[in-house]
């Protein structure tokens, strides 16, 4: 696929179709949006896990299935984010925190911060009411408390990804995880099993230690009000609960405690943000024409 020359203007110029493609370390996500006089509708979304496959192919797969589901013959702006910098048919690229902030705001207009937790990273971003990034904080180059780490432990415990959250919720007395290093923590966990600690308590212990880190990230930004959980782990109800507990314990927020919200589309926050900024730029720069048409797709 290649970028089409911007020829003519589409039938209905007031209606802008944009796509957002968010390439993460474990999956590629794509959405197609229509925005018309202030109204934004999500026409389609698709996620394809990378699973040791060629990333370019995965991206195309996610993009084309989103486009087909949306039935979009042409797009005015294709915006990439995350690792998607080099997508040949992207009109422009926005960086991860810019898009997650915007996407989170779209999913939850009250949100003033977003907690983006992926397989290998975690970052907290504070934004204003227009999705402008005010400040951020990310975890360091060590995988402690990353999604990957949680996945490894779950595998060891014989728990599938989907079961992690529900099991963690059953925990009566969470078992704290001490070690800084993920591998040493893994040994902690092995010892826990040998001490007969229940799986839910172990999982919740890990969730708690992750939540602790994330809340420290938020705290370092002095966030207020509502925060959205986005990224690959957004759907983990155990993690959600752990973060909520940590938030209340840490008394985050000067006036009222910080409220954590999630959304069925949380996983698409980055892609949504990219598509929204795409539309914003399309209008701001008054580009006109289309960036991509089905004819040019493979």
């Amino acid at each position: 696929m290649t970028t089409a020359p911007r020829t003519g203007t589409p039938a209905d110029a007031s209606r802008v179709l944009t796509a957002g493609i968010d390439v993460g370390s474990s999956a590629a996500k794509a959405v197609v949006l229509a925005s018309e006089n202030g109204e934004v509708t999500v026409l389609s979304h698709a996620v394809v896990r990378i699973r040791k496959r060629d990333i370019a192919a995965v991206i195309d797969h996610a993009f084309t299935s989103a486009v087909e589901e949306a039935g979009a013959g042409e797009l005015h702006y294709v915006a990439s984010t995350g690792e998607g910098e080099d997508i040949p048919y992207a009109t422009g690229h926005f960086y991860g925190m810019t898009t997650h902030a915007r996407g989170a705001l779209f999913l939850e207009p009250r949100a003033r911060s977003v907690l983006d937790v992926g397989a290998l990273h975690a970052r907290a971003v504070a934004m204003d009411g227009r999705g402008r990034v005010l400040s951020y904080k990310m975890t360091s180059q060590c995988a402690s408390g990353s999604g990957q780490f949680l996945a490894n432990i779950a595998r060891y415990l014989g728990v599938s990804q989907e079961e992690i959250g529900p099991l963690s919720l059953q925990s009566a007395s969470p078992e704290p995880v001490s070690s800084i290093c993920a591998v040493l923590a893994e040994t902690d966990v092995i010892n826990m099993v040998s001490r007969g600690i229940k799986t839910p308590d172990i999982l919740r212990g890990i969730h708690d230690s992750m939540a602790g880190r994330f809340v420290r990230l938020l705290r370092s930004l002095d966030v207020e009000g509502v925060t959205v959980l986005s990224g690959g782990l957004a759907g983990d109800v155990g993690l959600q609960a752990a973060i909520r507990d940590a938030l209340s314990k840490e008394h985050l927020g000067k006036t009222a405690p910080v409220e954590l919200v999630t959304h069925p589309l949380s996983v698409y926050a980055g892609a949504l943000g990219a598509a929204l900024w795409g539309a914003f730029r399309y209008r701001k720069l008054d580009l006109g024409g289309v960036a991509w048409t089905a004819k040019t797709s493979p």
Partner: protein
Amino acid sequence: MRAASKDRSMELQKQMIADHYKRLEEAPATGEPVVYTFVPGNLTELVRSFGALPVLPEINALQSGMRGKSGEYIAAAERAGHSEDVCTYVKCDIGMLASGNIGPTGTRLPKPDLLLLSYTGCYTFMKWFELLREQYQCPIVFLQVPYQGEGMIAPEHRAFVVKQIEDDLIPALERISSRKYDEERLKDALRLSASSEDDLVAVLESAKKRPSPIDAYFGAVYYVGPIFSAFRGTPEGREYYRSLREEVEERIRLGLGPVTPEGPLDDQKYRLVIEGPPNWTSFRQFWKMFSDERAVVVASTYTKVGGVYDRGFRHDAGDPLGTLADYCCGCYTNLNLPSRIDLLLDYIREYEADGFLINSVKSCNSFSAGQLLMLREVEKRSGIPGAFIESDLVDPRYFSAANIKNRLESYLQMLEARRAATP
């Protein structure tokens, strides 16, 4: 009987500290000027000769560590934008300030009338006071103390420090205290200092006896407290060291060892020399690891950060400002690495140590940078293996008990095996 005799000096110290912090709390009311300064190169005699009260931020920080407060203070400082990489004394102090500036005895600490930086053997001190100046908006006097890069105090360096004391410090102290510099008062204080210093050295060197009546690291950090902080050159300071010396001499007479948190340690299996500051957040747990293995520390470099008195230096009333300059230039972390290596070797020899251990703290590059070379050199030149463990001053996140215990056990088992094999 042991408990009782032990208690006297401890009681005295407790009382001195309580009184001092009480006086500090009342300073804003009584109008006594307050000078913040650091342990190494502290000019207590001069400061007090102007009726000013010293506050030593490191002491507050380590006290916060021992009282389990440092964790939250450090977190507060890091939230305020301080890096996790830098000295935790600084962050603990700044965090304490942000949390109401309540000192170790639960009393509020007064604002400084003057920040007195009279030591540059630690780079971080300079930044620490720049940071405090942002908080307090008060004057700083900066005395540059040249490092002993060539292993000695050059005469021109001594003169440089004296000139700074005359040109910058004395006028500043006169301003905040509205008193004139009184050399006689200073000389009286210096005489008191010298006599306390004699007693302290006698106590530290008692560790040459077998069994050693003291632990020259875990125990001695309490012994050096008064002389390293606000009480050098004071009558109560001298009183403390007199009674401490008597207690130690009594223990020698009775052939007793020190009393550790786990009880008396008379039957001493290993005699160790230690380089580097202790960890304060797990101080007792750390000490217990040694006493459990019946290891006693017979000499340490940390107890020299406020003055290397056991190598002969004494405050000299005969040359008041010159002696202060010598003192500033002579503190342990102002010695270059070759000198520090020689000192360790001397201690191992003089105190007939079985081994030496380096506790390398993340916070303090002045101490830590180069310690791995020191380890190797001392091993090479003494033929005695050393141990190397890593922790931090007051950051609870950096004390990994399991790792440290494993290393210490392995090390002592190694010394034992060598001893068994070499008749």
